[in-house]
């Protein structure tokens, strides 16, 4: 896999942060994707209005299409087997609801306002991710 130009990574990050900033300044909401998805699908019964959450969630793939069409053709390389993809999805869905957020809500929004919960959650999921990949790649050798 080719390394990504750090400036492109930084520019992408700035877009993500700008989206979070705009949603906060315009609507007063946290741009947390797991919470938005749970709300949009009716799995969560509190939070922003369902129509707002649905609009945000639908915007994500539209943004992806715009980049793919006008900026660069993104690779999507998934090496996990079907059972692992299903297990990973179940863990991510369950864990983000239990922990009230994911990389966006805790990582980008919560850390930016120095929320102790978000800092603890981000440290925990990063550590678990490092551990899992370390064990899979270097202990099991998968």
């Amino acid at each position, binding site marked *: 896999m080719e*390394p*990504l130009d*750090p400036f492109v*990574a930084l*520019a992408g*990050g*700035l877009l*993500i*942060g*700008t989206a*979070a900033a705009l949603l*906060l300044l*315009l*609507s*007063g909401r*946290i741009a947390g*994707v*797991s919470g938005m*998805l749970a709300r949009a699908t009716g*799995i969560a019964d509190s939070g922003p209005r369902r*129509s707002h959450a649905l*609009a*945000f969630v*639908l*915007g994500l*793939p539209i*943004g992806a299409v715009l*980049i793919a069409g006008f900026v*660069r053709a993104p*690779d*999507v*390389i*998934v090496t996990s087997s079907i059972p692992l*993809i299903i*297990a990973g999805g*179940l*863990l*991510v*869905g*369950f*864990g983000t*609801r239990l*922990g*009230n957020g994911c990389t*966006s809500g805790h990582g*980008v929004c919560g*850390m*930016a*306002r120095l929320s*102790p*919960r978000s800092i*603890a*959650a981000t440290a*925990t999921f990063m*550590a*678990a991710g490092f551990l*899992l*990949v370390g064990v899979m*790649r*270097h202990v099991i050798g998968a």
Partner: protein
Amino acid sequence: MRNVLAALLTGVIFGAGLTLSDMTNPARVIAFLDLFGAWDPTLAFVMGGALVPSALAYVVTRRMRRPLLHTAFHIPENRTLDRQLLIGGAIFGLGWGLVGYCPGPALAGLALGAWQTWLFAGAMLAGMWLHSVTDLPILRSRSGLVRS
């Protein structure tokens, strides 16, 4: 209606950022999580870039009585580190490392043509639903571990 448009616009910008920075590529994310191997620092640049405008916005909100298009800010005020937060974070991190997808890239990536993304997103929704119908005692008590 203006708030629906704001949500759509911010979703589009968010999805564009995830795609531009290659977070929609699970192999890239796993390479970042491979701290003990050939570590790829891309995600650190993405996170660093994202935190700057996000943090600035929080500073600005302190001088605002309400958001521009809405009656009040909805910023979580809970500061208690409880069991659910840490167990949930750990479960999420394991799933993230297993496949290389977290919720944002999994949803943005639905438009990028890999069937695995749809499978992952479906399983993720099932996991969210499972949480909503699960009532395990260890996950129920809201007893705080640390209060700050």
